[in-house]
């Protein structure tokens, strides 16, 4: 039974993290363990992935937080629905000297996201036994992290508002919140112009190294759409720019797939309003092609406001998904039944099917993608007119 191996492997992973947190270059090595698509994440359940992720993120409090890891922590704060993972991210942030400017907002967002599903936990080991020696909760750790930085001064109005919502938090969390507020008030010059440990720079978004235009790699990728029609990837995504997102209908995180498809519908409405919808292809491709049959794709999109037409279609790969996964370097992995973890990822493809821009891991906004579409359409129009001018010369 694979469950035996899995349980052992989680404890082995915990031992590895504990070892690395004591190494001089442990931070960088821990950061290398984060991407979802690495082999050590394959074959695990979502619950194990949460446990491993939360424990790993918390270790950055001891090693220091490298830049490469920061987007992963922000992702967990912005989209985490499991208290353990969110708590791990909050603890891990204490490994940075200065919070990037957009992190305090992510911390407050996590307070909102996790408020109704908080739980008692412990980071004393990766699988601590009850009763815990050092129990904590996600909300406690979120507020504690705010208190560790001058963010507590910058966020005083929001924190005070939260402290007035007494029916929202357990007594112990309220006490922690009051403590953070008092500390924030006591910080010299408590104001938005906060001091040393908050909050400068911005967090890295997107990622370098997007794949080149598809060549032979995607020749065999066959897609089936929400109505059962079959297309070759290389044919469908050529000739005009395309927005491609990845999702799966069984995703149980409302801040990931459901939000992504809802935002795709918003992009579609904007393009229609601008009468630009025929110039851009919109597509969503399932991470879970064996389960997401056409009917499920259609219902999932329609329920979130997508209007299917020739330019807007949802797909599952009926062959070549492995090639597709490799080419996009998708941030996804699988347990025995379905996806066990994935990042948020949206790609803007140019008319040759190459990736012009991508929005990965962090939450993205429809307006940002619309601006990127406008820029791409404009660039391609300029290139085309230059080519025509050359031909006419």
């Amino acid at each position, binding site marked *: 039974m*694979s*469950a035996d191996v899995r349980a052992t492997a989680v404890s082995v992973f915990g031992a590895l993290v504990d070892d690395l947190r004591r190494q001089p270059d442990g931070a960088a090595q821990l950061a290398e363990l984060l991407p979802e698509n690495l082999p050590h994440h394959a*074959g695990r359940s*979502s619950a194990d992935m949460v446990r491993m992720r939360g424990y790993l993120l918390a270790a950055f409090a001891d090693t220091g937080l490298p830049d490469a890891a920061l987007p992963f922590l922000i992702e967990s704060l912005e989209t985490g629905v499991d208290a353990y993972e969110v708590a791990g991210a909050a603890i891990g942030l204490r490994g940075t000297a200065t919070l990037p400017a957009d992190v305090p907002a992510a911390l407050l967002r996590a307070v909102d996201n996790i*408020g109704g599903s908080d739980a008692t936990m412990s980071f004393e080991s990766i699988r601590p036994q*009850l009763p815990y020696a050092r129990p904590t*909760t996600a909300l406690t750790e979120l507020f504690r992290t705010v208190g560790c930085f001058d963010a507590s001064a910058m966020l005083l109005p929001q924190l005070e508002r939260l402290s007035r919502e007494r029916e*929202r938090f357990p007594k112990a969390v309220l006490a922690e919140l009051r403590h953070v507020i008092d500390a924030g008030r006591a910080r010299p010059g408590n104001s938005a112009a906060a001091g040393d440990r908050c909050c400068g720079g911005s967090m890295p978004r997107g990622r370098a190294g997007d794949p080149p235009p598809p060549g032979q790699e995607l020749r065999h990728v066959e897609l089936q759409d929400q109505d059962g029609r079959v297309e070759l990837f290389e044919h469908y995504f050529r000739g005009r720019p395309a927005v491609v997102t990845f999702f799966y209908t069984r995703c149980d995180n409302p801040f990931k797939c459901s939000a992504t498809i809802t935002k795709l519908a918003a992009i579609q409405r904007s393009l229609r309003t601008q009468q630009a919808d025929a110039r851009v292809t919109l597509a969503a491709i399932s991470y879970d092609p064996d389960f997401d049959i056409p009917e499920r794709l259609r219902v999932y999109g329609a329920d979130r406001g997508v209007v299917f037409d020739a330019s807007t279609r949802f797909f599952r790969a009926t062959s070549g998904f492995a090639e597709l996964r490799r080419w996009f370097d998708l941030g996804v992995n699988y*347990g*025995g039944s379905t996806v066990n973890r994935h990042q948020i990822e949206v790609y803007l493809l140019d008319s040759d099917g190459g990736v012009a821009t991508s929005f990965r891991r962090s939450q993205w906004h429809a307006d940002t993608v619309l601006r990127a579409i406008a820029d791409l359409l404009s660039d391609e129009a300029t290139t085309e007119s230059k080519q025509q001018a050359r031909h006419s010369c």
Partner: protein
Amino acid sequence: MNEGESERLAQQLRQDLEEAEAERSRYLSRLLEVAAGSRERRSELAPADVLDSPAMIVLADRSQPDGERIELMDRLGASLSRDPRYIEAMLRILTDRGDSPDVREAALRMLGSASFQVVRFRPHRVAYIDALRELITDPVPELRDTAVGVLAQENDEVVQQALLNGLQGDGPLPVGRARAIELLAEDDHLDNLPWLQELFRSDEASDRVAAVRYMGSYPAAQDDLESVLRDKRESATVRQQSAASLRFLAPDRFEAVAKEIAVDVDDDPAVRSACLHTLSRLADPATVYGDTEFVNRVAEVGRDDAAPEVAKVARELVEHQPDS
């Protein structure tokens, strides 16, 4: 409603209110008497600041008859979550293994109801989950079973780990093996297929029905589901559930198998009828009615007096044929 009827109704309502008020007064008087008896033992019950009302005193007093304390809980009912002290008292009772099992079960019931008031209950949720986790190892089986069920529906990792450990023989199972598998299967992001395959080997048809129902979340279970659907030795109920799960995962594959079963005169009439009904109502009409040979064979089934129930559904399928 005329004026006379309105007046009679109003009078009736006034009378009901008066009776309710009188009944409430009688109960409060009795509660005060009971609490007075308890007050003498107050120092043994809980910190003094907790015992500031007759209700709190009676709730905390384990020497009171179970019925008295359970009636009080029932009366507190909907107002429970309006006063955090009552929730805290219920949590203390629930986790007190020295208290009466009946009273503890009543406290668990009350807390379960209160937890549906999501916003009002939010400050207590963490403590409630902690209490439920304590019950995973409680000696009272009913409390254990309820707590494990609630936690499993929340996909609580502590209970999932306890169930997995128990199934693997690494710890005690808080509930029966079959129930443990079903509770784990509530979370389709766990890798439950091997456990569901084990559950399917049960002698109980209800366990096998549950197994094939949950297998509907696992594309890798398609072979198992088809095999169960085709197995004439299996009970009709299990095969019908297997048909539903296979159709959910792979409608095309289901339709192909269902067509074979529907016209197999040696197969179980109940399964044949279910297949015909599903093909008629839920399948792709092009697949069903585009297959002329199949439709002709169904028409023959419709004339088969040996299986009248199947014949009836077969005729319905033929009659539903869309005009093309």
